[in-house]
């Protein structure tokens, strides 16, 4: 009885539906950050830190001039191709390594070595090999994202629940059927998590590539504006990049729900 009275004394926010509560908290946090930012910006002066209200105007300007649109198209092109290559390569090699342990043993030291090399350190080489066109940017995006995707895929396949594999064998599954009917589905949730981490890394790679290789895309805009000390416009571009991260993360999450609905619909997980 004691227990139930304690349980009944719920906090007021428990009456708000959970999803709505989370949205409200997000909006509240956003508003709080913007307010603090505005106040600090007014103190230090808009050259050092442009206030959010000034950013709205700056945003309008660079949209109107078409600068932002052109930069976005450039950036998204490199991002999309680089990320797609990272998925293709990461998932394929990760899967093969998980499926063939000896291949993993062979490749592991090479992957560990590549993994610790800062991609930025490869830039001079990439320029020598590929010039300064779209190719080195695509490769940079790919290199930024591929390892997370590869390693999560590899781990997921390697650590597949052997009990399910044994069950499939009992019912007569051959290796190909074990792969297509058990391993692929079982690894989808973890691979999806790898894709989500990889998406964030790909965006970082995109900006780094644009800053280092050529004044193009969103990174190029940042360079352009910083040469003119337009800090408000720099801030706008940074926010656009951050929004891309949010959007891409959300898209990949939708994809995860779509490919593994069973995983995300498990009840009673609270």
């Amino acid at each position, binding site marked *: 009885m004691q227990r139930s009275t304690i349980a009944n004394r719920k906090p007021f926010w428990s009456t708000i539906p959970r999803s709505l509560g989370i949205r409200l908290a997000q909006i509240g946090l956003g508003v709080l950050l913007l307010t603090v930012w505005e106040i600090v910006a007014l103190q230090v002066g808009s050259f050092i830190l442009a206030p959010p209200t000034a950013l709205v105007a700056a945003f309008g300007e660079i949209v109107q001039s078409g600068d932002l649109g052109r930069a976005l198209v450039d950036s998204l092109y490199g991002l999309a191709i680089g990320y797609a290559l990272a998925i293709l390569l990461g998932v394929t090699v990760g899967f093969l390594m998980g499926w063939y342990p000896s291949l993993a043993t062979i490749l592991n030291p090479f992957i560990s070595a590549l993994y610790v090399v800062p991609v930025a350190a490869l830039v001079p080489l990439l320029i020598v090999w590929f010039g300064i066109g779209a190719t080195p940017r695509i490769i940079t995006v790919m290199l930024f994202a591929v390892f997370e995707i590869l390693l999560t895929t590899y781990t997921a396949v390697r650590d597949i629940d052997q*009990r*399910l594999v*044994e*069950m*499939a*064998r*009992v*019912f*007569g*599954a051959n290796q190909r*059927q074990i792969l297509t*009917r*058990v391993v692929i*589905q*079982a690894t*989808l949730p973890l691979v999806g998590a790898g894709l989500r981490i990889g998406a964030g890394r790909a965006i970082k790679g995109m900006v780094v590539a644009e800053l280092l290789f050529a004044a193009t895309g969103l990174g190029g805009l940042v360079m352009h504006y910083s040469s003119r000390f337009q800090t408000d416009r720099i801030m706008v571009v940074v926010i656009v990049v951050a929004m891309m991260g949010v959007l891409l993360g959300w898209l990949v999450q939708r994809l995860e729900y779509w490919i*593994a609905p*069973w*995983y995300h*619909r*498990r*009840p009673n997980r609270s």
Partner: protein
Amino acid sequence: MQIHNNGHNPLVQVQNVTKQYTKTIGGTRTQTVTALAQLTLNIQAGEFVAILGASGCGKTTLLRLIAGLTMPTEGRILIDGVPVSGPGPDRAVVFQDFRLLPWRTCLANVEFGMELLGISTAQRRERALEAIALVGLRGWETYYPAELSGGMQQRVGIARALAVNPRLLLMDEPFGALDAITRSQMQQELMQIVANAAHHKTVIFVTHSIDEALILADRVLVMTRGRSLLEDITLPFERPRRQSELLTDSAYIEVKQHLLSVLEPESTGQQSAPQP
């Protein structure tokens, strides 16, 4: 009964089977674990055999050998006179931990084995629905395993095994993960299911519960770690049977007392107080 040979051969013959596992310890040294030593037993078609023994005595190893998931170190296993060389559609396993595919609905899980056998979609659906009805899950076809209770998940496991219509049903402590009430309910239902199944099933049922063995089986085989069979008892009761009737049967009490005394030195940690 469709017995393809001379009609006298047992369905399952385990002949002098030894199974050893080699474990690598510390990278270089290896250690050999003997899970089964020189085991010999026969099981006739249509029998419901309980394999009883403390944990670690090799029951799961025996089932995996019969299922063809692993090969004996010595000796051989024959099904219908033919040596086992791998899994086959004549045998199906019900696992203690259910092993349902979490991304498949109840219905799709039951269809899994039939899919691998290449049975047509229509026939698959029909047989799956039949098996689901047999285990009492009608109406739950579209539910995912995570949305089902343990007892219901195991019903799906049983339906999946029955749906491929095996001659031999291998059950490895299938109710071991269930609570006592569900467990006793499932025991009653399993008896009905086996009695009602399209073809009279041969069942090998692994358990470490004396009561469960006595309620379900025609025959109880008692296993001990590293030795050959301890006991081979044919039970004098008809199937299906009710636990309430058994409890007052003097033959039942006698067999139970006997099994308790046989298992006693093994099951030191288990309570084995005889019933009044």
